[in-house]
């Protein structure tokens, strides 16, 4: 019996070896469609981080920008393609694959690519690279960064107007880590609130982490208890704690960040606690970079995506939690920022753990 089992096992293993050898070539490293230079006005290769092009987040948005560009310019399917990275170690090989194929624009989505792009870009001086959401010093890399303060200004206007409906007239900001990056979110928000509602009290707290949702929730408890009616969270995953607390209360609001968080705020009653969201449009960056390359206008260096090129904005869908008047007011402010009448700075006003009222009292 044992002998028979052994035999069966060995034959099974042998079979599996044969089966393996017949397997299709490895998926990673082989693009879905190989772009052929020459037939296309421009060829685009997008490298995702470990999220796929259907991650409902940055990668998906980036790929949608590419597809929109393809559609608008009637490019053939083989002109655009993407490579999904299975691990951090795939970044360099994937970027290089597109480089070797002579793709015109190679796009890397997310700051995780920082090392990889600095390593690969010098090897392909004739290839154009787009680096979304961070900065590379290489000459052939276009670094797309976002003017978060402008989008934050707009959601600040919406929050400030919402706070007017309450007696306490207060709004809150809960950020991830104190510093220049999130500071821009805070500064824009403060200016937006005060532009629409000069009397408002603004509370500011930092989680000191982008992960600690329990601390973020406790900070939200503190701010809501102090009379805050709208909290703008830019604390990454920790921001979930703010949304959870708002759901528990039911009569307060949260402003989402980076993407439309309306669905995350849905409660059992069928409405959402997300007042609006500050949105980074990654698709604008990929679209713009492809377009610039096609028109031979592509330049390396930093390109800022802001309201003027629709790289950033507030989520203003009608029929949600914003009234039509508020939407119109926000659109007004957006027009003023675009026209240069209002300049949004990145200088923060309120210190961590304080409000603009307690600071003045000091």
């Amino acid at each position, binding site marked *: 019996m044992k002998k028979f089992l052994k035999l069966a096992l060995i034959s099974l293993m042998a079979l599996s070896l044969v089966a393996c050898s017949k397997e299709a070539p490895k998926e990673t490293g082989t693009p879905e469609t190989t772009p052929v230079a020459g037939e296309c006005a421009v060829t685009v290769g997008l490298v995702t981080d*470990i*999220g*796929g092009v*259907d*991650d*409902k*987040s940055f990668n998906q948005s980036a790929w949608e920008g590419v597809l929109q560009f393809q559609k608008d310019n009637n490019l053939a399917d083989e002109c655009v393609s993407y490579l999904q990275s299975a691990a951090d170690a795939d970044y360099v090989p994937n970027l290089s694959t597109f480089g070797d194929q002579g793709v015109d624009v190679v796009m890397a989505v997310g700051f995780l690519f920082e090392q990889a792009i600095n390593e690969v870009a010098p090897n392909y001086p004739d290839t154009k690279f787009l680096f979304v959401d961070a900065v590379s010093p290489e000459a052939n890399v276009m670094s797309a960064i976002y003017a978060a303060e402008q989008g934050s200004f707009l959601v600040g206007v919406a929050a400030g107007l919402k706070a007017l409906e309450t007696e306490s007239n207060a709004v809150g900001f809960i950020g991830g880590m104190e510093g220049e990056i999130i500071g821009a979110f805070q500064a824009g928000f403060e200016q937006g609130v005060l532009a629409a509602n000069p009397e408002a009290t603004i509370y500011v*707290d*930092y989680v*000191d*982490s*982008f*992960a*600690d*949702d*329990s*601390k973020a*929730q*406790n*900070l939200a*408890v*503190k701010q809501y*208890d102090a009379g805050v009616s709208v909290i703008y969270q830019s604390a*990454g*995953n*920790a921001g*979930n*704690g703010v*949304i*959870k607390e708002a*759901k*528990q209360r039911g009569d307060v609001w949260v402003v989402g960040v980076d993407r439309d968080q309306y*669905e*995350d*705020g*849905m*409660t*059992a009653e069928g409405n959402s606690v997300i007042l609006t969201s500050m949105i980074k449009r990654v698709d604008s960056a990929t679209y713009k970079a492809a377009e610039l390359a096609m028109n031979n206008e592509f330049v390396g260096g930093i390109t800022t995506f802001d309201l003027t090129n629709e790289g950033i904005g507030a989520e203003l869908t009608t029929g949600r939690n914003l009234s039509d008047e508020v939407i119109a007011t926000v659109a007004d402010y957006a027009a003023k920022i675009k026209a240069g009448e209002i300049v949004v700075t990145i200088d923060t006003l309120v210190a*961590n*753990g*304080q409000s603009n009222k307690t600071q003045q009292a000091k």
Partner: protein
Amino acid sequence: MDILISMIPATLLVAAPIIVAALGGMICERSGIVNIALEGIMLVGAFAGATACYFLESHAVLGPYAGWISLVIGIIAGILFSLLLAVSTINFKADHTIAGTAINLLSVGLSVYMCQIIFGQQRSQSFMTGLNKMKDVPIFGDLFANIYPTIFIALILVVASYYVVFKTGFGLRLRSCGENPQASASMGINVYKTRYMGVLLSGGFAGLAGAMMVLTNGVQFTATSIHGVGFIAIAAVIFGKWNPFGILGAGIFFGLSSAIGIYASMIPVLNLLPPEFFACIPYVLTIVALVLFSNKTVGPKAAGQIYDVGQR
């Protein structure tokens, strides 16, 4: 005074999962296996809890109890996942620290991969409610309105695990395997079975703690849902001297230091200290506790040692 009262819910929210996970870690170490994998098991428990909650909430009959059923699912997931630790350390005699670390690394990849399969994104879909605060419990009125019921689960488990570990025959056998497994075996105790019980129990506790965290703290599972609480729980085991009531104190203390960090800016004197000061209190005190305990034999003597039947 108002500040003090608002600090209580903040403390308990942070403390509850630390206490439950630390109880699991304590039981595991009492059996002789060091459970470094608490963090990873919690993450898997959180993933299972959040996923179950998302799918159950829309169910007509089970919907209102979705949060509670999800806790049970979290326990089951934790037990199943901790089997990996049990098999590798007990049967295959792997080094406890290395096996635990491997499981921690595996947990992130596994849970995110499952999210990709189930939800098509690297986080779970958002559930609507999870667990609610006890504002609807009429007997207590406003007293507990800001408190999640999970802290009471933690309190019950503290008492229960004290009783089981120190007052029952099973507890005695469990502790003996952690002190001197060879002697236990000579007295007819099945060391393998007892240690399996210890590891699987801790898996259940950690899975419960993970599900509790995701259902009370956030609105969805993400790769950072546990954010190091599993390691703080290990610290709580040491700080609480491997005793359930010590762990209760340690958990509440760690929660309190987090709560003070939040309200410090409103309290005189404390507002002069930087916020980082409060964030580092748990870690500093754990190191202090380790130094203080280093001369005394407070922990299980054989914890972390690979069980060799022939060793004398």
